[in-house]
């Protein structure tokens, strides 16, 4: 879907991106992560031609972006930024409909689409008539995401969209993104410096440092086989084991008959199970299925032992 080949970019004398190659498949939730100043935002902004690369080539849907009109190109790509950038003189409704209007959609189609996208992102109808400054930060970014998706682009670029939000709004928008990705099958390219966010959302993670790509992998593989010290360090060394428990379900480790009084659902993660054990001061939990019946049991030893095997 998106192909970067040997892309380099320097701002003045300072290199921002050095000889970077990436391949982002259709329907991926691709997260670019790295410390600030590593060039991840530059990569994102080169994909929609906001920044022209010095060397190398970028292909979108098999077509070199240099051959495309940048304005047309961008209308086909959703774009969300940290500072949201809603237009202060337009209502939320008009903001969401910005790109479809540029594309010349009819009034009825436009209204229907705004309605639909607002419902999808659970934006209150009442909010649609308001102006951006009358909304909370979380609501604003919801509108920002809605605006990016309004013209139904198959690619969505997001540049640290939730970094400025409070933890509650952030978590709820992250859930929203997971759902959206699962439902629409669009390709997301998402920049963040928050590894929990990355692990939560990504199908693929690319770790960047000093304008170079360090490692690209699925989140679980990244935790299991970090390429080098930098990646290990970045993903928080001590906490890495715990993070890994997120990616395994209780179902995969349960065995034996249920005897323990405390219970946990089969689809919960090992991390949840461990947390519950610590909280309840027990070493075993009974596992329940969707109906609530106890089906098996999980032991703390199985959680810990299993880790090396994965």
């Amino acid at each position, binding site marked *: 879907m998106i192909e970067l080949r040997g892309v380099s970019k320097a701002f003045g004398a300072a290199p921002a991106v050095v000889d970077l190659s990436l391949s982002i498949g259709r329907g991926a939730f691709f997260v670019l992560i790295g410390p600030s100043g590593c060039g991840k935002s530059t990569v994102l902004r080169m994909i*929609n031609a906001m920044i022209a690369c010095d060397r190398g080539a970028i292909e979108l849907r098999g077509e070199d972006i240099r051959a495309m009109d940048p*304005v047309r190109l961008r209308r086909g790509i959703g774009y969300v930024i940290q500072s949201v*950038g809603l*237009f202060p*003189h337009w209502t939320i409704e008009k903001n969401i409909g910005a*790109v479809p209007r540029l594309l010349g959609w009819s009034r009825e189609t436009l209204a229907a689409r705004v309605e639909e996208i607002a419902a999808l992102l659970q934006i209150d109808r009442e909010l649609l008539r308001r102006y951006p400054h009358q909304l909370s930060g979380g609501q604003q970014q919801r509108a920002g995401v809605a605006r990016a998706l309004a013209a139904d682009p198959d690619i969505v670029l997001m540049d640290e969209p939730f970094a400025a939000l409070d933890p509650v709004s952030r978590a709820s928008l992250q859930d929203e993104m997971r759902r959206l990705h699962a439902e629409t099958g669009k390709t997301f390219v998402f920049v963040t410096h928050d590894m929990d966010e990355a692990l939560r959302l990504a199908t693929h993670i690319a770790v960047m440092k000093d304008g170079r790509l360090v490692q690209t992998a699925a989140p679980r593989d990244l935790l299991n086989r970090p390429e080098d010290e930098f990646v290990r360090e970045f993903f928080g060394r001590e906490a890495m084991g715990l993070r890994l428990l997120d990616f395994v379900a209780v179902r995969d480790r349960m065995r034996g008959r249920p005897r323990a009084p405390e219970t946990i659902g089969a689809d919960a993660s090992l991390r949840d199970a461990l947390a519950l054990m610590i909280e309840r001061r027990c070493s075993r939990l009974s596992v329940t299925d969707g109906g609530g019946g106890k089906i098996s049991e999980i032991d703390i030893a199985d959680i810990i032992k299993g880790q090396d095997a994965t």
Partner: protein
Amino acid sequence: MRPDAAAALSAAGRFARRPGLWLFLLLVAAIFLMPSAGILFHALFPDDRHLIYSRATFLELTLAHCQLVALSSLAAAAAGIGLGVFATRESGREFAPVVRAMAAIGQTFPPVAVLALAIPALGYGAPPALAALALYAALPVLEGSITGLDGVPASARDAARGIGFSPFELLWRIELPLAAPFILAGLRTAVIINIGTATIASSAGALSLGSPILEGLSAANPAYVVEGGIIAALLAICVDRGFDWLSELLKQK
């Protein structure tokens, strides 16, 4: 019918409470009734001279004055906004400091002095007055445009570019509407100054509401001065009110 009539009445009532409206009516009355005020002026200035200015009707004077101000302000708005847009584009960024300094320094030039400089350069009559007024009035508009355009949030600009606004659409739909209050404020300053300077322009041979004032001054006929002065003052106040109304309209949108 009844509720309609009531609504119309209350609308009329709201209308009547606007001081701007009354001032405007006063201005119209002054323009048309001034010639009939001879008795009043005779009482004020016991003099047997001719006390009502009659070289041109007050309507002609007012229209000429408005034309001078409107044309020069229009030209100033075009030039000021154009230059402001240029200085805030990527290609014109380099000119921004000089343009800004020019606008600031230029506004310390007294408008009368600019008018005075235009006469040696361009001669007598309405055209040099027009040019001087336009030149001077362009400066506040320019300053307002640059302030307004620079004040557009960078995030809105970045987002607009990112979701596919062309440079023109960005300017027309996002930047100019957001800068409009500042541009309007600059234009207001420009127009009010122009109304004042246009009265003085009559000393250089342009017909305006300054003509009776200046003739009254040179002929020691205070009635002419008062006639011209009242209409000129009312005109300025009305236009200022009009800008008040415009900027409120802009805020509501």
